[in-house]
């Protein structure tokens, strides 16, 4: 039972353009949604989060949008830079502090 779904295994975007990574969830009992970034041979690092009562959160080049009615969130990266090439994981935080991750989307930033 996959509660957090990232349906795109990979995404390629031209440098300078907008990258949009998508995530769907099936459970309405999540408090927060988070995005993590992972480089090879390293652990994931926290990128940005959004409360379930908000619909947008912005931090520099990164913006997360939450559509509760659609149970969908997206991460926008503008402008995309070469260092953004990584695997991005969507995660959902339950009220009991359990955190569920999606399978990840590999982002390639093309020169």
């Amino acid at each position, binding site marked *: 039972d996959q509660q957090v779904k990232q349906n795109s295994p990979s995404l390629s975007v031209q440098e300078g353009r907008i990258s949009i990574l998508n995530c769907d969830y099936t459970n309405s009992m999540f408090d927060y949604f988070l995005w993590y970034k992972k480089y090879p041979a390293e652990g994931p*690092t926290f990128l940005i989060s959004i*409360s379930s009562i908000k619909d947008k959160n912005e931090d520099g080049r990164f913006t997360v949008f939450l559509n509760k009615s659609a149970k969908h969130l997206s991460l926008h990266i503008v402008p995309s830079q070469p260092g953004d090439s990584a695997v991005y994981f969507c995660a959902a*935080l339950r009220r009991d*502090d359990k*955190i569920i991750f*999606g399978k990840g989307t590999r982002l390639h930033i093309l020169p």
Partner: protein
Amino acid sequence: GAGVSQSPSNKVTEKGKDVELRCDPISGHTALYWYRQSLGQGLEFLIYFQGNSAPDKSGLPSDRFSAERTGGSVSTLTIQRTQQEDSAVYLCASSPLRETGVVKLFFGSGTQLSVL
């Protein structure tokens, strides 16, 4: 300050042997999480600790897997009678007390386990 430390970074073992994976969380972090990432897969939740107790062990794949945390600090994940399907990167993460709403996990670099 030091981050989350995991040891060993790589472990090669023979099928049927037991292995122990260690995680040293960031000092003062109350929560500790274990995940694993199999080749081409996402992060699979295994177990998490609040202090020394584990409120949710539902992610442990079988009774060959166990974990403990002592003194609210170091945690050990033990896999008995390893199987080839146990091969994966085992990731540990810790987080401070949830005060402002969100739990932010700080991950170690993982232990790459290979079962031959």
